[in-house]
């Protein structure tokens, strides 16, 4: 719908910083006959928080794993901090943070011991600008694990575990941080706390953050910029406001007439309501006009791209979040 606009929009922010922290051109990922990613272009600048949104199977995880250097793309020019992640050396790893979803690793360790241990690897890469690692005590307080610091990880709750995952991701004071669905399984309280944590990180350290989610509210709250991935491409790129404004949204008009409820969807709510009032000189009750939310427009956008994709792809090949 406005895929064409994304290029020009991205172009606006480019002159500020000639070398983006993350730069991807023509990223393709092919599994057998099926293209999961068919030419993704994106760039993220220093200190930006960018959210990658998209339905399951759109290739969000694949994209982020390519950027982390854990997956070989079929084609494309990829640079993170000026280096192709696939051929990056170990010192590059010191500058990149990855938040993994823990499962049962290090179950018998305590959060304090694990952070001490993993942090130690970064000490050799400490600089005046970025002292590494972040002291364990400071980190535990930052993610709110102070009270559980000496428990076995096995005994942590799901939310505590994810906060530990975030702590591990930032123990090396990374310049760029990747998070793949960091709040999956969070309750609203934990989610709110996590959002505050991300804000603190970006404010304090000028950390560049790329995260995936399928929670629109989260994307809206966290991101400077939202990228929508559908049908193997970035189909939208902009701030939450910009996206909402640029989509010619449907609106929903509801009213009651003679005790009966009516609902009507329309492109032009104003004209419709004017007509409606003119048609019913004796009046209607409970008139209500609801603008489509970002969620509605997102869903519509994604549906349009998926429909287009299904038209020339055997359905059976559309696999999970590969």
């Amino acid at each position, binding site marked *: 719908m406005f895929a064409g606009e994304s290029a020009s929009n991205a172009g606006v922010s480019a002159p500020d910083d000639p070398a983006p922290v993350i730069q991807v051109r023509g990223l393709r990922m092919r599994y057998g006959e099926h293209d999961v990613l068919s030419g993704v272009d994106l760039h993220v600048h220093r200190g930006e928080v960018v959210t990658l949104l998209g339905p399951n199977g759109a290739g969000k995880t694949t994209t982020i*794993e390519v950027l982390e250097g854990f997956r070989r793309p079929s084609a494309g020019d990829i640079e993170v901090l000026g280096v192709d992640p696939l051929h990056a050396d170990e010192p590059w790893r010191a500058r990149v943070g990855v938040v*993994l979803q823990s499962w049962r690793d290090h179950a018998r360790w305590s959060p304090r011991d694990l952070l001490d*241990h993993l942090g130690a*690897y970064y000490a050799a890469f400490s600089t005046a600008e970025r002292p590494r690692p972040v002291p364990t005590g400071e980190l535990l307080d930052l993610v709110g694990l102070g009270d559980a610091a000496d428990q076995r990880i096995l005994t942590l709750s799901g939310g505590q575990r994810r906060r530990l995952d975030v702590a591990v991701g930032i123990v090396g004071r990374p310049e760029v941080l990747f998070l793949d669905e960091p709040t999956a399984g969070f309750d609203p309280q934990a989610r709110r706390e996590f959002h505050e944590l991300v804000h603190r990180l970006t404010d304090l350290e000028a950390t560049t953050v790329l995260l995936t989610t399928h929670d629109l509210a989260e994307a809206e709250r966290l991101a400077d910029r939202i990228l929508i991935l559908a049908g193997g491409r970035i189909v939208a790129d902009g701030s939450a406001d910009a996206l909402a404004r640029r989509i010619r949204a449907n609106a929903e008009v509801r009213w009651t007439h003679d005790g009966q409820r009516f609902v009507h969807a329309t492109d032009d709510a104003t004209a419709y309501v004017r007509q409606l009032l003119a048609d019913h000189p004796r009046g209607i009750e409970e008139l209500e006009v609801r603008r489509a939310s970002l969620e509605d427009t997102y869903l519509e956008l994604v549906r349009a791209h998926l429909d287009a994709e299904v038209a020339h792809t055997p359905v059976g090949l559309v696999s999970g979040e590969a």
Partner: protein
Amino acid sequence: MDVRVRAFMIGVRRGWHEFVIGLRSPQDQSFYVLMGLGVLTLLWFNRDDVLEGTTLTVPQVALPSLLAGVVMFSIVIGPAYALALEREDGTLLRSRVAPYGLHGYLTGVGVLTVLSLVPLLVIVLAGSAILFDGVVPADAWRWGLTVLVLLLGILSNLPLGFAIGSLVPRIQQVTTWGMLPIIGLAWISGIFGEMAQLWGWVQVVAQLFPLYWLGHLMRYAFLPEAAVVGELTGTWRIGWGIAVLTIWTVVGSVLASLLVRRMSRRQSGAAVAEARDQAAQFVR
């Protein structure tokens, strides 16, 4: 200090930490005790038998052989199991995220494996010294020799463990490709008794692997000269033993490092998530 040396030291501390955690856990404790008791029981049932042509008792001859078996078993199965399990559960991936983290992780696995041998050896040796007469060497030079042989045994078997751990697709296959072959190998390598009854070609096969030679060298370190009549050629072949174990050490290390690298490259969060989903299905 070089970053690699630092990572190595972090790995040593990691291995030590995991060892200490293990010592405190009932699960690891019962493994050590059961394994030790198993060996002692085997010796106990043959305590009155005498080796033909000598005055040596069966426990005397069998103890060094069984120790060789215990060393190979734990040195191979330890890393094989650790790599297969920790690749699936994300431990390995977490280590890869840190700079030189993979170096540290692999060092940690190696250190943990070697340390885990200590309680086992202590239980078996102390138990044997209490239960049987004259089975444990009394002079210091034999102990020195034993330590050297153990070291060689550890170095030659460790790469095999890493290789198996890298190759098996899932943790369950460690039994198929690790445990069962080792038990078979122990059988043909004279760990549980004399090899002379076995066919000639089986003896040849056994001598291609490190276990036979580890047993041979252990017996050399533990037993008096007269015990040599129980050996295949009726002689001590020390040079051969050292040569075979050294070749396994060198070739194994090269091969294992290639396999570990290949395996770790294939790891990703998605792979861990997939393993997690599959494990969840098993539970249901």
